[in-house]
């Protein structure tokens, strides 16, 4: 593994260590923990914070298990566990923009366990089709600006915010170059490596991340290496990263991941903030643009269809099948899943649903199911070739 990839993987594997080291090397600076999936991190960056999307950790849930019920998603239960164990004390403040009932449950635990740490919920209205929503989101953005400025103790300079937006856009653009190259078969990185690229972006200082990506691209990424029989698209898995051993298992079963719409994947990097608008206006617009580019079932928008997006993405990548990764108990995903299923049945795309949990997965059972999918796709190709 080359040096940039190694460093990005290192940060992705232990975000807390990165945050602690960053604080030590930036005395007097603050770290803001951000809950997924729509908070505009650029605002925090411009105010001098290190914005970090708080990641699920690898520890078994223990202290937090008794705080949130067992039927909450793995991410929110793990957040509660991290809060209960004091693992989140590395953050100086928290920001949330997403109205997810489970996420707010975890946020309530975070406030309960650390009442001295500010936690601001600037709700971005999820119903995108009503005329009133744009005004409301714009107003909420102003409230968030005020709260960020209060936390930073200084006003956000608009030019500095514009610089932060440009920096974040650069990071997204570089990541998209890599994702596009994978989709087009020009490079080969494993699913775990692709996840490292995005997860580290959610944690690291953006300038440092951009520098590593530029170094990676300059050094070049190899094209070959996969002996895969089938090409797959990974879909879903909001808020937290699917376990890397699951991604490895998929590849071990003879599949190559060619594209995804995971939050720790293309979903996170898909949309730039417009640089031709007032920065606050641009961040508000970004919220709406994201849901058009990769529709999300946590949003309600009548003319944005995740099923249509997925169908187009599969056509574009030439994926032979889809694995839907669903964080168990994720209600928006459970609600939309039948629509995805209907679409995949209509276009005769083989698919597999895998539910994931924080506390590990029955890997051998899942292996059998993935192998069955790969076999089904392979046979389908054989039959098609014989006709």
């Amino acid at each position, binding site marked *: 593994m080359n040096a940039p990839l190694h460093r990005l993987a290192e940060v992705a594997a232990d975000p807390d260590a990165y945050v602690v080291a960053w604080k030590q090397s930036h005395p007097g600076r603050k770290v803001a923990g951000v809950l997924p999936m729509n908070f505009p991190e650029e605002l925090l960056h411009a105010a001098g914070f290190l914005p970090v999307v708080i990641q699920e950790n690898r520890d078994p849930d223990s202290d937090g298990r008794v705080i949130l019920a067992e039927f909450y998603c793995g991410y929110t239960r793990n957040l509660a566990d991290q809060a209960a164990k004091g693992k989140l004390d590395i953050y100086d403040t928290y920001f949330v923009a997403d109205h997810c*009932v489970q996420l*707010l449950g975890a946020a309530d635990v975070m*406030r309960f366990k650390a009442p001295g740490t500010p936690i601001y919920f600037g709700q971005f209205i999820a119903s995108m089709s009503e005329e009133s929503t744009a005004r409301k989101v714009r107003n909420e953005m102003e409230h968030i600006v005020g709260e960020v400025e209060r936390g930073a103790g200084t006003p956000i300079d608009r030019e500095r915010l514009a610089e932060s937006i440009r920096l974040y856009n650069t990071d997204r653009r570089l990541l998209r170059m890599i994702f596009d190259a994978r989709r087009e078969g020009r490079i080969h990185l494993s699913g775990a490596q692709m996840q490292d690229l995005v997860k580290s972006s959610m944690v690291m200082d953006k300038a440092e991340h951009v520098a590593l990506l530029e170094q990676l691209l300059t050094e070049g990424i190899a094209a070959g290496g996969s002996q895969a029989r089938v090409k797959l698209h990974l879909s879903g898995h909001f808020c937290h990263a699917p376990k890397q051993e699951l991604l490895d298992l998929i590849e071990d079963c003879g599949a190559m991941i060619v594209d995804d719409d995971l939050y720790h994947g293309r979903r996170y990097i898909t949309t730039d903030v417009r640089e031709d608008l007032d920065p606050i206006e641009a961040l508000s617009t970004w919220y709406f643009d994201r849901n058009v580019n990769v529709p999300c079932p946590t949003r309600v928008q*009548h003319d944005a269809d995740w099923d249509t997006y997925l169908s187009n993405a599969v056509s574009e990548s030439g994926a032979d099948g889809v694995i839907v990764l669903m964080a168990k108990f994720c209600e928006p995903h459970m609600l939309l899943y039948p629509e995805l299923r209907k679409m995949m049945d209509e276009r005769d795309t083989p698919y597999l649903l895998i539910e994931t949990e924080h506390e590990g997965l029955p890997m051998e059972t899942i292996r059998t199911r993935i192998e069955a999918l790969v076999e089904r796709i392979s046979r389908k190709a054989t039959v098609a070739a014989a006709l």
Partner: protein
Amino acid sequence: MTTNPTTSPTTTGSTVTRMQANVEGGKMIADYWENIFTAPERGKKVVWYNGSALNPIFQAAGLEWCHGEAFSARLAAQHLEGPAQLAGAEYGYIQELCSYSRTHLGCAVLSNGGGPTPGGETGVVSALDQQELASKLPKPDFFVNAYSGCSTGQQWDEVTYRVFGKSVPIFNVSIPFLWGNKPDSRYMGGQEWDEATDYVVAQLRDLITFIEAQTGRPFDWDALSESMSYIRTASELRLEGMDLCAKKPTPATYWDWIASVAHINFLPGNQELVDYFRSVRDEVQYRVDNEVSALQNERYRLYFDGIMNWNKLGWLAKRFAEYDAAVIAGRYTHSSFWQEPQIIDPNDPLRGMAQHYLLCPINHSLPTLDYLTQRDCERFDIDGLVFHSTRTCRAFTNPQTMLASSAKEHLGIPAMFFEGDVADASFYKDDILESRLVAMLESIDVRRAKAGV
């Protein structure tokens, strides 16, 4: 093994004296649903809605309204939820999904003509059941969603809209969650409350414009004022009845108030509604005056947190009574449903309506819920808290362990948890309820013994 309540040392096995007013109230509910079922043949437009009690607006617009959660709850209470849930499962909804939505979406699938393919037969629901459900619940002319607190609520209606092939118009009213961001944030007060109120009021005006377009008629503001006037009076009578339950032993229980949830939540605002709640209040007053208690031998006074387990309504009432445990109040009944009538101005009703939508008890974060829970525990001199850990209702379950901790810390009262669900009986575990209830009651006995009570 289930403990025999007649031999347990902690029980005497109270019987429940049911309120007569609720017998008549049951007929009102049956009439309401019959009215919905016959709407198409009477040429009435039907709106499907979820979440907040928008029904006064629909009433004033001359519509028939079908509350999705209420319909799911009704099916569950009558043990008729099975076919709809099976149809939902066949369509692809996973069992861990909110069972209200799963049941209602199953009805949508059936109403829309069957299984995963519109017009196709479902393989798991018998033709008779399919026909029965599908023909009973009329297809919507449009949807309105105004879900407070729970993010799933809004997504649920969006998916219903998609199940119907996006062919039925939909309007969303977004209710901001009251997180308590500002230093002045408090129950019904502060900048956040004021701004959220203004935002919801503006959306209600937009909703009325949308409804005018759907009906082709100007909205009848006078009818809305009249309806809200009746609702305000009905609510005041309901609260008077609830207040009387501070008496020991209580003249009525939480289960009695559950029996009137439908009335206050979605029946038409009219004189009949007022008469019903007057009869409820009067019956409770009669009981107070004549020393009639709800339970034969009240020994424990409990508070119930969680949404109702509709499959087990009668069962739970008897279960607690067997242990002489009077469940007096709860978040679902006492912190919901036009519970602050003083803020309803019938002459200018939208603001008070918007504020009630914001006051939904799943639309608050922990500090406000702590306040409401402890307020009612003190008001009704509660001995213990019962938390219904509702498997598919994350919104109601969210803060429960923390509420229990706070009540223990500030009031010194114990709590118990039991598992169940709103509309899926498979999640209910009776033995767990019983053993935990017995344990909590014994801890109350020990506490009393130590205090020399």
